[in-house]
């Protein structure tokens, strides 16, 4: 449905730095466009949910998030997914570099 996501997961000093980009209009219901924004973002580390976010149309268009996960090792599976107010969703998976 929507444009691509992009993620970079790298090891930093004692934590895993996860930066994720999402293609989404995050519209605030201009006159012609209906309200269309991501509501929830979920981050999983090796299948275990570690961050659950609820967001609104106050997050910028084409959202960019950076999270920090405790510890982590090369090859860890990081997955980030989103769900918007129309029920559309997308997700991306990457292993820690």
């Amino acid at each position, binding site marked *: 449905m929507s444009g691509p996501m992009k993620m970079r997961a790298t090891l930093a000093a004692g934590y895993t730095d996860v*930066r994720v980009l999402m*293609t989404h209009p995050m519209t605030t219901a201009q006159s012609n466009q209906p309200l269309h924004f991501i509501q929830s973002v979920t981050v999983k580390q090796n299948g275990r949910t570690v961050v659950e976010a609820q967001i609104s149309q106050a997050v910028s268009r084409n959202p960019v998030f*950076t999270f920090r996960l405790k510890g982590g090792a090369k090859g860890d599976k990081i997955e980030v997914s989103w769900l918007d107010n129309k029920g559309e969703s997308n997700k991306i998976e990457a292993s820690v570099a």
Partner: protein
Amino acid sequence: MRLLVSLVCALPLAAFAQDAKKEIEKYQQMLGEGSPAELWEVQGEELWKKPQGPKKASLERCDLGLGPGKVAGAYARLPRYFKDTDKVQDLESRLVTCMTELQGRSPKEATQRVFGNADRPAEMEYLVAYIVGQSRGHKMAVPNSHPKERAAYELGKKVFFYRAGTWDFSCASCHGETDKRIRMQDLPVLSEREGAQKAYTTWPAYRVSNSQLKTMQWRINDCYRQMRYPEPEFASEATIALTHFMAVTANGAPYRGPGTKR
């Protein structure tokens, strides 16, 4: 007494202006740490490889100056003279050449929609994002030796200082003197090395104000619009000469695009 008042009032303002500059640089630096521009690069690479046009060919054999298909560092050496078209071309005009020659598309169709919008970016914008991203870190080394390159440079300099339009402006009216601002917007001097190196190497760029990755041709187009000029022809000799002049002036600095801007 009145003089004192204005002096007192001016002092904190001067100090404030300095802080303002520092804070805006912080805004720009934080913006750059993770930019939606990368989403354009991803889609640009797909389009670079996607067979299109009557000849159902991709652009992977397109020669951007370093040989067919060579993308790494190509943008840091554009605009330049191309023997096959016998013209100095910038990236966008060169892509149109590849679309017509390799893919068999008509020039009209290839340039039909070169400026997109937030909901539907243009193919050209995706392609440009991908290609310029492949020059990140390469030192600007734009050739200026071929007679036509030198002629483009000289013409570009004249275009930079040419005053006209409803408001009598030239590029130099705003980009001609150091430490000048339009509102809070710093204005690099694009006709001199330091200013050109600082600014030219961060375009094309993702603009947060309209949520799009915009190309150099668009940057020039929209500047002329705000200068109250009539519209320049896409990839016309004047716009390519102007680009060549700024690009050569920026030689020596590492290319840092695609940038992320206001």
